[in-house]
């Protein structure tokens, strides 16, 4: 995936913040997973969950749940959960060291100024 490293709209240009570029990259992964889950879950259920009022055959039940719930909802739910946990723990970039350092400095100077006053 080619991502811009500098601003391309408007008159002037500047270098993009790596944290912003990371967030964009993470956004694409979220979008893809959302589309996969939508197509899988709604597609399967549209085909197999709906039952005609005239249907004679009983609804298949596996492990205590209707089969369409197992394959069309429980399985994609489990898949999305695993991918989301992987995404959260290993894919999201921990890119706020600059902010944390700056805030620590601000906090320190705030405490110092308070101790000067009292």
């Amino acid at each position, binding site marked *: 995936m080619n991502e811009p490293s500098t*601003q391309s*709209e*408007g008159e*002037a240009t*500047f270098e*993009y*913040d*790596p*944290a*912003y570029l990371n*967030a*964009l990259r*993470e*956004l694409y992964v*979220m979008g893809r*997973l*959302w589309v996969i*889950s*939508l197509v899988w*879950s*709604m597609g399967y*259920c*549209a085909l197999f*969950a*709906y*039952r005609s*009022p005239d249907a004679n055959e*009983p*609804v298949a*039940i596996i*492990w*205590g*749940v*209707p089969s*369409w*719930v197992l394959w*069309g*909802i*429980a399985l*994609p*739910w489990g898949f*999305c*959960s695993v991918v*989301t*946990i992987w*995404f*959260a*723990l290993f894919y*999201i*970039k*921990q*890119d*706020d060291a*600059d*902010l*944390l350092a*700056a*805030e620590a400095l*601000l906090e320190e100077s*705030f405490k110092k100024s308070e101790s000067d006053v009292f």
Partner: protein
Amino acid sequence: MRLSFIDSPTSFVLAISDANAALVTFGLYSLIVLGLAILSHRLLSSRSFLAEYFLGSRSLGVWPFMFTFAATSASAGSFAGFPSLIYAHGWVLALWIAGYMMVPLIGMGLLAKRLNRMARQSGSITLPELMYSRFGHGSVAVVATTLIVFLLTFYLVPQFKIASIILQSLMADVPIWHQSALLLGAMTSTIPYLNQADPGYLLGLLSFSIMVIAYTSLGGFRAVVWTDVLQGIVMFTGVIIMLVLVLQQVGGLSKATNTLAKMTPPVLCDATFSRTEKTATEPILIPSESWFELDDSEGKPKRLFRINEIARILEKKNDSKPVKCVEILSQYERDLFQSWKEKKKAVIVPANVLAKVSNEKPYQHGAGQTGVYVSAPGPNFNDVNGFLPIAVAISFFMYWAIGGAGQPGSMVRLMAFDSVKTLKRALALLVIYFGVIYVSLVLIFCCSRVLIPGLDQTPDRIMPLLSMHLASTAGIPWLGGLLMAAPFAAAMSTVDSFMLMISSSLVRDIYQRGFNPDVSEKTVKRLSYFCTVAIGVIVMFAAVNSPKFLQILIVFTGGGLSSAFLIPIFYAMYWPRFNNTAAIASMLAGFFSYLSLYAAGVYIHQAAKPYLLLSQDPFLWGLVVSAAVGYFVCKATPPAPLGIQKKFFGRGQQAAQ
């Protein structure tokens, strides 16, 4: 016509002991909540007031952040409305809630990193303040503040009402509660506006309001977060215990689903009771959920009914008013009744009254069909197309994930965590938390129909009734109080967050920025306390006689907030060029297109219902219009000032104090 009856004193004894246990549980819960508020109030004095009161000094760790996000998302509807829908329509609710598989990722992940970073860079405490910093213009903040204050105030009224009803149900059989309600009724009987409300409801409203106003105004954001943690733990524990008990008592999930597959929807009707001895004058009370049989057709089995409301034959009167009732048709439910009857577990209409059934109406979709509770679209009393046609299911799939992301209440939480490391861990935990809660709720309440049949006219009572049933059967009465505290906790956690949001908008965004930028911290403190209390009191009075269409008001305001805020905030976070004019246009276009579809629905249906264009929720159309208008207006107008673009999107920018 003949009535059979069995006296059931044991059920009343159980009800009283459960009620006292509920009172003790609720008392303990209230004490802990107030203790947390006092602790956070102490912390307030040691930190910068505004940042601490409205944003917890932006220092939320993994567990508080996860719990406060989850508790704010889960309103009373999750523990009162959702169970009643599962009870009424069966397994199809798994399809209805399927979008929750993406709620942690989209709801938290979509905006969290950018929103938190930009709030830190600009030192923003509220959402309108962040918009002001991002666009460099006050007009966008004014529009945002107006929408937040207007919509959230409307949103709070039904939440107060629902919480009060839950509290009233929780305390229904506690003697001291009845005495207090009578006393309050006597005190308010001459006050014009207050005397129109039921004293029991009024007492519930007053108790809830005092508690929520006290801890929110006293402790601010941190108290809200701490109580959210407590409430989140209560909800999680309650659901797990319920799941274990329900599976144990129903004999396993397979047995429950196979039984459900054989059930057919009942016939809904009204029942009227009259005295058999016309000379008697004493009042007769027939408890809700009492059973009766009618032998009105020769050669056929007796017809079986269950009432869903209390029936009263008043002193010196011969007949009761009509009460809601269902005719049980499934063989399993009839067998269950026979077994309860033999064990003297069923409360049955007494022998000294006769029953008459009228206004019998079958389900429009699913009547007489087996398997309807384990397949889509699910039975529906009102609609021949069933409960959830596939187009509506797709609409809900998108609504849950995207709608949650667009709630300003959730956005404020995203501004409050302390680091990306916290976000990563909280997101992973939220997946587990939501997965356990919502999957368990579906399993529990699919089994609930097998355990407690015949509640179809008042399915919203299934949560308290099942809690009491499970706890009584398991021989742990205090558990009933804990289980019923879950929906109450959910209502509280939503209300406290929104009260604080309105208060912060009034103090920070309107007063401080608009009128008095140099206001002293002392004045800000007083104003913040005053605003939080005032909002709570105003909403409490509005809830005394609130409009009838509570659910539609909740759905309308929730969808309106997402339609107005999600797209402008999303563009603002990810599109450097996005400017003030486009943000205002996008916000107003989203909100007014959403409002138009509701107005069209009211005009077309002559009822409080939205117009579903192409079977999709108005909220989704609001998003589409908001996105299109925001995009084209931005392209047609000059980009955001370069300084702002550099500040929020350029390399090497620092945090603000």
